[in-house]
């Protein structure tokens, strides 16, 4: 038996068996709930918002430009 085969055998004995692979209940409602959950701001969103806020503070005149685009 090679070392790989021996370790594979040990792992098969040590790791939990998979057993029945079907879920006990219907998970679809959880998938739907997850899909509909309000997403918070991502780091990218926060970063962009911070940059815009900093620019508006440094250049108040740009606020008019921003308001036009919004």
């Amino acid at each position, binding site marked *: 038996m090679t*070392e*790989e085969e*021996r*370790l*594979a055998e*040990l*792992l*098969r*004995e*040590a*790791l*939990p*068996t*998979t*057993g*029945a*692979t*079907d*879920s*006990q209940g219907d*998970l*679809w409602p*959880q*998938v*739907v709930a*997850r*899909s509909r959950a309000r997403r918070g701001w991502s780091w990218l969103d926060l970063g962009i918002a911070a940059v815009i806020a900093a620019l508006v503070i440094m250049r108040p005149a740009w606020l008019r430009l921003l308001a036009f685009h919004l």
Partner: protein
Amino acid sequence: MGTLDRSILDRFVHGDPTAFEAVYRHHEAEVRRWVVRIVRDQEAADEVLVEAFWRAYRGRARFDPSRSFGAWIRRIATNASLDHLKRTRRQTHAGASDIRAPPTRADDGALRDAIATSFRRLPPKLQVAATLALVEERPYAEIADALDVPVGTVKSRVFRAIRALRRNLERLGIRP
């Protein structure tokens, strides 16, 4: 498992919730079987399954309906399983107590625990490759497709997993 009608996949890509459910029902069992093979925990498999399909829904615009949805969701599920292993690995490191004396063959339960704990401390990418190749004996091509890496990379990860596991076990005084 047959393939879904192309029109359903088209509607899924465009956000049709009925199509999304049809896609979910068609692939749920197969995806869950795959996830269980990796995470080895029924409750965790449910969470990962929900996460995988949520990611698929979120990224639906990137899916090409002319391609295999099964292969695509399997890749997503594999990544979600990897993320789960990363989280649990951090918990294993945080909560694990030092093993002061090497378990002996007489303590089969302790020996299995030591091997399982050593394995769970491996980098998750190595764990996944080793679990699927050595424990589940899946074809390397299938593993490579699920991980979206070349077959050579899978073989390399399995080799590194074996080497790291052997080292961890030797530190515990266990000779495979």
